[in-house]
């Protein structure tokens, strides 16, 4: 009797198993297509991770290049500033020498006029004096040279002012470097999620210090300074009103 019951239980379990197998048979094509899909996607993922690793390995080189560009432009700018400083000093020396020559000429001219007044009238001497005075008109040319030197000096100074572009572009480059560093972080994180990547080989070097202004802009338009001035004026007048209120 007990054996019969056991047999019934066995058949019942076999029926359940048959149902499961029945459903399993229906699932087989789906599982098969999933396996096929996996077969296709795995090489793609491998390619993707490989490509991410390659990109990551190139990033430090790119940031190094940016650093080199910044250093090179700073060096070149310093050299230009040195040359302009030397030029300005030479111009100042020349202008000083010219000034002395002109002062000496002025004195010479004064002495000459005194001599002219002291010597009795003589047509030959008069003629020579007039000839000499014509030569004296060169002083006008010396004045022009002096003015030109001052203009060259001012132009040289304006060159140095334009070199502010180096500071501004170096800040822009620093911002790009920071951005590249952020992209590298994202790529490493993505790679890490796709497969268990070996992070030891990847140089993680994200610029942490923000010693740059990402919005630095080389524009000579006065609009931004005017805007700053108006904010300052408004701020100062507000502060003054507050002070006035305190004393009223």
């Amino acid at each position, binding site marked *: 009797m007990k054996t019969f019951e056991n047999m019934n239980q066995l058949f019942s379990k076999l029926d359940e198993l048959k149902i499961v197998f029945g459903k399993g048979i229906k699932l087989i094509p789906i599982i098969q297509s999933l396996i096929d899909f996996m077969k296709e996607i795995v090489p793609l993922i491998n390619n993707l991770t490989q490509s991410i690793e390659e990109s990551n390995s190139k990033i430090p080189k790119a940031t190094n290049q940016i650093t080199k560009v910044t250093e090179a432009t700073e060096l070149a700018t310093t050299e230009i500033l040195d040359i302009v400083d030397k030029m300005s000093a030479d111009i100042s020396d020349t202008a000083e020498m010219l000034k002395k020559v002109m002062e000496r000429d002025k004195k010479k001219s004064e002495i000459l006029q005194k001599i002219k007044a002291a010597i009795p009238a003589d047509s030959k001497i008069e003629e020579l004096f007039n000839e000499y005075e014509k030569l004296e008109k060169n002083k006008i040319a010396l004045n022009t040279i002096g003015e030109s030197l001052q203009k060259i000096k001012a132009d040289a100074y304006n060159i140095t002012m334009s070199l502010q572009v180096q500071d501004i572009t170096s800040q822009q480059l620093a911002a790009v470097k920071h951005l590249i560093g952020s992209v590298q972080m994202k790529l490493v994180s993505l790679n890490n999620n796709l497969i268990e990547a070996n992070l030891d080989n990847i140089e993680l070097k994200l610029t942490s210090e923000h010693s740059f202004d990402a919005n630095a802009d080389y524009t000579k338009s006065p609009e931004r300074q005017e805007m700053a001035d108006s*904010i300052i004026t408004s701020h100062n007048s507000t502060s003054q009103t507050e002070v006035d209120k305190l004393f009223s």
Partner: protein
Amino acid sequence: MLKFLVVDDSITMRRIVLNSLKNLGYNDFVEANDGKEAIEKLSGDAQINFIITDWNMPVVSGLELVKAIRGSEKLSKIPILMVTTRGIKEDIMEALQAKVNNYIIKPFTPAVLKEKIEQILSTN
């Protein structure tokens, strides 16, 4: 007699500011590469009575420098002119709240530098 402290992490900018000061007839100045160095220079030189500083610098920024100076009983009265690339309204407001005396946006012209220094001197 004015003694300037020029603070900027860019050698180029420091030289440009110094050249401009020389052209304006000022010849007494010291330099610092960042806010930290500036504080060291200030604590070692009581004659410094005018500061021209950049904002974006490593270690200690220009804004932090301004706050540190304004928070110091000994140094709080020194006029500060900020010369920076930061040109948006919020930045200018932040600098004013930190109590800079005036604000110049790079690239600056010699005329603007002269005007701002004179404005500061006339109100101090």
